[in-house]
């Protein structure tokens, strides 16, 4: 998607973090639930998969097909594992963000007609 700087988009970051938290056992449902629970954002499974596919395309994650539980009625689980490149991307993204946050106090920012204290 034209993002060649190795940095992650906001949603990509959330998804990749959820995969990393899964310790190699993450799959579509757990990733979706993890994001929803931890970020409070409502997320559709389609968005999760679209992002996972993109991350896999970039070489940040890899997936394998495993067998599913009873309530899946024969449908496989696609397990995702974060790759080294993915970890690097998370770190780079975090580093870039931290650099920007450094020394920034939101409460001190004055915007036009905005809050001031």
């Amino acid at each position, binding site marked *: 998607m034209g993002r060649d700087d190795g940095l992650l988009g906001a949603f990509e970051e959330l998804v990749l973090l959820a995969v990393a938290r899964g310790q190699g056992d993450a*799959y579509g449902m757990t990733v979706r*639930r993890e994001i929803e629970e931890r970020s409070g954002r409502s997320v*559709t499974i*389609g*968005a999760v998969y679209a992002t996972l596919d993109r991350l896999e395309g970039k070489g940040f994650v890899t997936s394998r097909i495993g067998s599913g539980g009873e*309530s899946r009625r024969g449908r496989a689980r696609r397990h995702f594992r974060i790759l080294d490149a993915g970890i690097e991307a998370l770190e780079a993204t975090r580093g870039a963000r931290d650099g920007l946050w450094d020394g920034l106090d939101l409460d001190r920012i004055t915007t036009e007609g905005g809050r001031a204290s």
Partner: protein
Amino acid sequence: MSRPTGRPPTLARALAAWLDGGRLGGSLTGDLDEEYADYQLPARGRRAADAWYWRQVLGSLPRLLRRRLSPSHLSGDVRFALRVLRRRPGYTAATVLTLGLGLGVNATLFAVVHAVLVRPLPYAEVEQLVRPVPDELFFLDAREAQDLAARMTTFESFAAWGRTLFLFTNGGEAEEVRGARVSWNHFDMLGVEAAIGRTFVRDDAEGDDAIVLGHALWVRRFGADPAVVGRAIDLSGRSVRVVGVLAEDHVPIEYDWEAWRPIPLDPEAIAGSGLAANARLRDGVTLEQARDEFRRVIPEIWAEDGYVASDEDRAAIQIARLDVWLMGDARTPLTVLMVAVGLLFLLACVNVSSLMIAQGGRRADEFAVRAALGGSRGRVGRQVLIEAALLGGLGVAVALGLASVSLGTFTALLPVDLPRAGGIAIGPEVVAFTVLGALLAVLLTGTAPALRAAAGAPARLVSARSGARGRERTRARFVLVATEMAMAVVLVVGASLTLRSLAALRAVDLGFDPAGVVTVRPSPPSGVYPENEQLTDYYARLSERLEALPGVEAVGGIQFLPMTPGGWWSRYVPEGWSAGEEENHPSTAVRVVWGDYFEAMGIPLVAGRGFERTDETEDAERVVLLNEALARDAFPDGEAVGRSVVLSEVTFRVVGVVADVRQSDVREASHPELYLPFSANPWRRMHMVVRGEGESAGLAATVGEVVREVDPGVSMTEPRPMAAIVAGTLSDAELLTTLLTLFGLTALALGAVGVHGVTAQAVSEQRREIGIRLALGAAREEVTRGTVLRGLRPVVVGLIIGVGTALFAGRLIEGVLFGIPSSDPAAIAGASVVLVLVAVTALVVPAVHAGRTDPVRSLREE
């Protein structure tokens, strides 16, 4: 509702599974299902969980749809093919629309043919069910039917039936319902069971008070009340018991039957004859065995009545399969139409093929480069086939869309008596047929270009403009245009034949003048008008009122109206025949007429006089009128007026001869007819015929009012202009003509597009050659003329082949033609002229274009 617990909403899940595309083990759907069952359902309950599932699926829709259709999920060749097609929108649209049109027309017609002809009748072991034909030969009476049932050893069962009308009087408005008297085993023999209650049992035929209702009648008159079964209802003033209601999908022996009553076992209990019959063959008995036995047994029964069967009678006896017989009238036109749309489909395929070849010509360089870069021949060929398959798939989509739209219009046009028209729909068979057609189209259209593309050697790149290839392509184009034209000719000839046949039908002299005539048939109930005296009185009162209407010129009546079903035949003895020969005496149709029937219908008197009021008095001499055909038959030596004929042992004097009329159908020649005055044989339901001046629609309404005023308790058929009744008998011929004309026009359009495209392509390829010729001093008109003439060569070849095919295949359409042979020169010549004109028109534009070639530019382009 019936969904097991723990299962997500069915529709949403199906959608998810489709979007998932079964990829990677369907993991996405699995995720949704797992979360639904393990988390959402237990935590939030059914409704919230279902809503969640739906939100997930619908919310994922845009992303998943893109993923599903994204190139990275398709194979490389498909991706490439999609790109190729997208880059050539004109070519893609032309191909898809041509295919869609060809396939769509086929799908529509196949839906009809499948519903009417192919779908088996809903009877048990249909192949064993037979029908002795023709009916007229052995209009049985109840006793003969019982005799036959007992004597025929090849029949497992035998059930007679006779058409009848039932007058339903429950709940106010009286309604006439068409139905039949049937042997009590009729339904058992067919293997038909009632939806509610039962069909007939033997006991029902012991008495005479049972009735079985058709589904539509039950809904219409009884509000679909199941409690009506077992109840007594009022039928023509007498009480009968409803024993059962048939299923909605029951197919009656005749399309408009809605009620059935049993034929009483006691032959004396039911008067008259005119029964037809169906039978079920014993296991292992062939049609021929049954026919041979039937040809032996029927004359035995006739002989007991004193009638000696002639060899002709015997030879006419046939046993037909019931299903074949039921579809008999519809079979030929539907077959003709199916062949026509098949041709149209092939025509579309040829067009697509030539589009593809032209496209292949344009892409020759691309293929040559690919081959030079190491692309194998198979790979390039496969590429072209995949493109064709994609186009085919799109064509199917267009076709099914088109078919679902056109089917509604089409079924509305169908004649009402087309058997089983109710089941016409786009079912799985129609979809399968269309997909199969598309597959065929892909193979037909894609193979040649694929082979050509695959044959492209790297050397082509160098010698791309060599003459050999040009010649080869010219030959291919010649064959394509000739083929297209041949098929178009066949279709256009078919269309012009039916047009000429319809014109011939319309030009038939009916023998009467329907313009300005309105007819209505009242049904005076036997409860109120039990005897002849009351009936005569009723019709006298009605006639008087009708005659008094302003503008009415004549009022009469007849028991069987021309152009409507029904008939009564009788043997007669003309004066001068000896009584000894009586058993082989000729027969005639007998018509009972009322009042000034001949004046009202516009039937001219040829000799003698017509009926007069005095003929109706009790002590008057018994008189009859003959039509010309009967006068010729009965008195071949000359004058009929003043002679006598004996009918049912009563002697009548012939007082006049009237002109022949087409009695049963426009297509059927007039047969002998004998007219009796009403008093000689009063008839309960007379078709009243009213001739007025001016417009018949207004008169029809007035006539209806008069019938109601004379006695509101008398039900009647809808008053109709006679012209509409005549037109109705031509509606099937009109439909066939309309459709074939439509197909012919489509074929012409497809052919024109093909000829134009191919010639335009040739002209653009020969620009250099044309440029040189112009530079060397050739006249522009000469170039134009030369292009048209060259373009016409394959057209003429196609025309010759097409006309030959049309002549050869003429037998197929013969059965639906009237008054002209299938080799009708006018139709064939007309079609040929139209075709050549269209072809010339299609050629003119590229030819003029060729003539305008700028020699300098065309030479510099190289």
